């Protein structure tokens, strides 16, 4: 993975010193709350319902075991011995003290980590495909590009005070696991007719209160132009994005109001001035960055390891896990493994400090000392020998990280919700837990098949409910917590936004509502048809009837 050089170290240390000074001046009354807020946000610090929350950047989801152990240690020393992985591949601590945050940032800097621009109206952490570099469907490895864009976006002097937050996702694969269609900018590595590498550029997607699928504004951008083009997009947005209403300030509103075609012209006109300029990226620079992501020392193995095949035949629980949580790897004899952070009874995405240490040991033993965070709030071991899978599974089971539910209903994506977040209309974690308890029969879960269930505690949509096959949104009805249900959303290259089925429900009704949606699906599905495909084929009516017939 990317290792800091002396320059990177210096910049991050300068940031820690700057932030330490800002905290000191705030505590001394030299900065007002209004003046301090944008500064602390750009260092990841929110003031939450009960305590501050510190969001730590995990650049494009990549972590070394040294870093994970440091996070475990920070959790013990400054928090309540756990952290929460988010839908943007970051890690949040929910209980740090404001006074401690400069020390936490200094500790992070010691392992080449930071909380730079994880909040605030600036360019946020760059996210990517959690299978980057090991997927079979990859045009090229996105990680060198992610690092290039991470550096470009860190402390960009012109774009530190944008109209609103700005999220960029990059993928190198044909199957979009980075949700590039629902980001402010989505970049997809593609080849042109001559085989040259470049980017498809998508702008103006996003969830939140106004969910919109992004628009392709350029089918092929020469790769060397990437930073010039990003500068052009950001400059157009910085100058013309709305600042009068924070709910209309995201780039998606500008793109919509200008129309995607006119917005594209604006960007192209700006780019014409920047094209070929000093920010043009030579291939040598990408090669230099790519050298930070070498393939690990793979052994020469053959696929379908006989021991692995035998173990699956002998042990149904292991076979279930292998079917759901193990994914094809581009190198024969290796596998990608998802560690499920979606065990019933544990808030989705949470991991204790002890578990972090144990996971770090396992990644050292089984996956070359690295791991990834997925935007579905799970962890990924990207390079496990098939022959080691049974041993790894055994260890993960004892840690509670082997729930065989990846892609299934109980792999719920869920924001922290009203238990922690001051923006939330409603709690989300207890809803996730109630649904997980209702669907605890594995055979039934597997029979239901692939289903993404997403929960957000408010319309800011941190739980990405719009793109859930079933999406649940917490709403406030005269001070009470209610839940609106939508179906038919999906992520990936066929990104679609779910449709609301009707009036909202009380918390205690939610497991039944989901159960009735599933009943309707099972009654109508064609063979091998996923829930979301049945919804797309039939529309929401049969589902709506089933749900409301029983309640009203």
């Amino acid at each position, binding site marked *: 993975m990317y290792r800091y050089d002396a320059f990177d170290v210096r910049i991050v240390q300068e940031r820690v010193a700057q932030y330490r000074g800002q905290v000191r001046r705030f505590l001394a009354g030299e900065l007002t709350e209004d003046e301090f807020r944008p500064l602390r946000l750009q260092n990841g610090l929110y003031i939450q319902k009960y305590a501050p929350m510190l969001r730590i950047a995990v650049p494009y989801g990549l972590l070394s075991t040294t870093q994970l152990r440091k996070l475990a240690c920070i959790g013990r020393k400054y928090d309540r011995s756990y952290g929460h992985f988010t839908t943007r591949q970051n890690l949040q601590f929910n209980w740090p003290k404001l006074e401690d945050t400069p020390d936490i940032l200094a500790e992070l800097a010691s392992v080449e980590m930071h909380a730079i621009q994880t909040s605030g109206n600036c360019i946020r952490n760059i996210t990517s495909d959690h299978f980057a570099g090991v997927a079979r469907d990859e045009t090229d490895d996105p990680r060198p590009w992610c690092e290039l864009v991470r*550096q470009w976006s*860190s*402390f960009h*002097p*012109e774009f530190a*005070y944008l109209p609103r937050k700005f999220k960029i996702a990059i993928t190198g694969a044909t199957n979009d696991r980075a949700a590039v269609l629902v980001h402010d900018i989505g970049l997809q590595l593609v080849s042109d007719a001559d085989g040259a590498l470049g980017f498809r550029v998508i702008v103006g997607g996003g969830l939140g209160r106004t969910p919109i699928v992004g628009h392709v504004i350029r089918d092929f951008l020469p790769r060397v132009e990437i930073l010039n083009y990003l*500068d052009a997009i950001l400059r157009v947005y910085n100058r013309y994005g709305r600042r009068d209403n924070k709910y209309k300030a995201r780039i998606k509103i500008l793109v919509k109001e200008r129309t995607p075609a006119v917005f594209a012209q604006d960007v192209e006109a700006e780019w014409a001035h920047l094209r070929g300029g000093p920010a043009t990226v030579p291939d040598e620079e990408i090669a230099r960055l790519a050298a930070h992501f070498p393939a690990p020392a793979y052994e020469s193995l053959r696929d379908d390891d006989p021991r692995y095949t035998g173990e699956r035949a002998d042990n149904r629980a292991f076979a279930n896990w292998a079917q759901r949580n193990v994914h094809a790897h581009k190198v024969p004899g290796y596998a990608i493994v998802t560690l499920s952070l979606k065990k019933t009874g544990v808030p989705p995405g949470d991991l204790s400090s002890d578990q972090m240490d144990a996971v770090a040991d396992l990644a050292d033993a089984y996956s070359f000392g690295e791991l990834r965070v997925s935007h579905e709030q799970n962890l990924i071991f990207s390079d496990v020998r098939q022959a080691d899978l049974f041993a790894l599974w055994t260890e993960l089971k004892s840690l509670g990280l082997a729930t065989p539910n990846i892609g299934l209903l109980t792999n719920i994506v869920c924001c922290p919700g009203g238990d922690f977040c001051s923006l939330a209309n409603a709690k989300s974690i207890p809803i996730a837990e109630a649904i997980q308890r209702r669907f605890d029969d594995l055979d039934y879960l597997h029979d239901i098949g692939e289903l993404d269930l997403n929960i957000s505690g408010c319309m800011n949509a941190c739980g990405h409910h719009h793109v859930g096959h079933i999406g649940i949104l917490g709403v406030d009805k005269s001070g009470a917590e209610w839940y609106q249900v939508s179906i038919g959303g999906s992520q990936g290259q066929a990104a679609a936004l779910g449709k609301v089925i009707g009036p909202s429900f009380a918390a205690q009704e939610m497991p039944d509502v989901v159960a009735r949606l599933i009943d309707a699906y099972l009654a109508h599905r064609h063979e091998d048809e996923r829930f979301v495909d049945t919804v797309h084929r039939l529309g929401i009516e049969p589902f709506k009837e089933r749900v409301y017939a029983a309640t009203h």
Partner: protein
Amino acid sequence: MPQLIKRGALAVDPFTLVRDAAAELPSGPVIVPLAVWIAQRETLAARGDVGVWLTPADDPSALAADVGRLPVVAVDFPQFTDGRGYSSARLLRERYGYAGELRAIGDIQRDQLAYLAQCGFDALALRDDKNAADALAGLADFTDGYQLTHLRTPWFRRRPDGVAARPLRAVVE
């Protein structure tokens, strides 16, 4: 009175900032709203001591023909969180070739000075209730940065290992 920082030190400000487009212009060097400049462009230009200030929404291209004869251009930041002026500055410097004093005015505080300087501001009118000695230290918060700015090329072009030292046009072709 705001405190003017130029070239890393406190400086005397000869200019009077005229905020109100309807106000009568005082004698001596003044900085006028863009609308006033546009209305009386040739008269004011002939004086030689008249500068212009831009709101965040003003398009710097309005001054494209004047860059050689303006002693100062100021860009207003009504709130420090309104970042439009950073782009205005880069356009004035890099697109329209303005080489005179470029001044940030309005809600100018310590924690934005380093970014303002990188975007081309060489004069910073610090908010009058802020400590100037303290704010000056903010200019030194960062010793360098990754991006192309008005003051520097991207770090990858300056790296000591020199991987990116090829001439630019060759890179593009």
